[in-house]
């Protein structure tokens, strides 16, 4: 059980690290939100699962935390992205001729 918990915790930490790396590498704010949201959501869930394996008596509180993260994380990201779009931040495109078609219309 201890080994399994350690592996799950390590996976969570790895996904969170990848999320941080995504924040650094992505070209614009929308892509950063994408990398950040997904990696941190799964990373946090993974960490919570790991803690649940180490301390089974905490499962009910951990479940509440996990549900709150699942509901609020994507919501917050969408809200930030919406505010950016309304503020007029244009998404980055690699080659404006092929990918920019939909947003100009």
């Amino acid at each position, binding site marked *: 059980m201890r080994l399994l918990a350690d592996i799950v915790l390590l996976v969570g930490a790895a996904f969170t690290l*990848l999320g941080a790396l995504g924040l650094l590498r992505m070209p614009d704010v*929308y*892509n950063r939100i*994408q990398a950040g949201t997904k990696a941190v959501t799964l990373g946090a869930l993974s960490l919570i699962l790991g803690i649940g394996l180490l301390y089974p008596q905490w499962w*009910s509180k951990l479940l509440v935390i996990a549900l709150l993260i699942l509901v609020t994380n*994507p*919501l917050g990201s*969408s809200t930030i*992205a919406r505010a950016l779009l309304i503020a007029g931040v244009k998404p980055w495109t690699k080659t404006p001729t092929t990918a920019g078609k*939909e947003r100009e219309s």
Partner: protein
Amino acid sequence: MKTPANEATDGTLAHGVFLFLLLFTLWLLLTGSIDPAELIAGAMVALAVTLISRPHLNIFTGLRLTPGAILPFLSYLGLFLVELIRANLDMARRVLTPSLPLQPALVEVKTELQSPLGRLILANSITLTPGTLTVDVLEDRLVIHWVEVPPGLTIEDATRSITSKFERHLKGFVK
């Protein structure tokens, strides 16, 4: 459960009961005890919160509160978890590839879900699935930022590949 029942219809009563049970379950999870005093306190708090939030109960309007809704809900949860893991592997692959394979653009998709709650759940699901981020919801259309848009994409294609797989399950428990 509701004392001033003259204005409450069947729908809001059922939704009130639903909210009460939800809050009470939350209380049980947080306290983690079945001591009678705790249970009574929890029931009172849940009832108070339910009564206070009566004007906002219409958020649950789209919810189907029938036993037949349980199976679609569970299959939706399963699909959601699989998609969440796929989304992370996909993002990890992109971040770790030195050339950073991205072809992002905003696309619009249509949804068949009518209720605000259904659209909220759909928008949240899209944000947590591979390569997509919900940016805005305009009536029955969702504006989505997609990291890798295939060339020559139409709104029908985007709808098919982004929303349809969730809608199939979501329709079972929300309108």
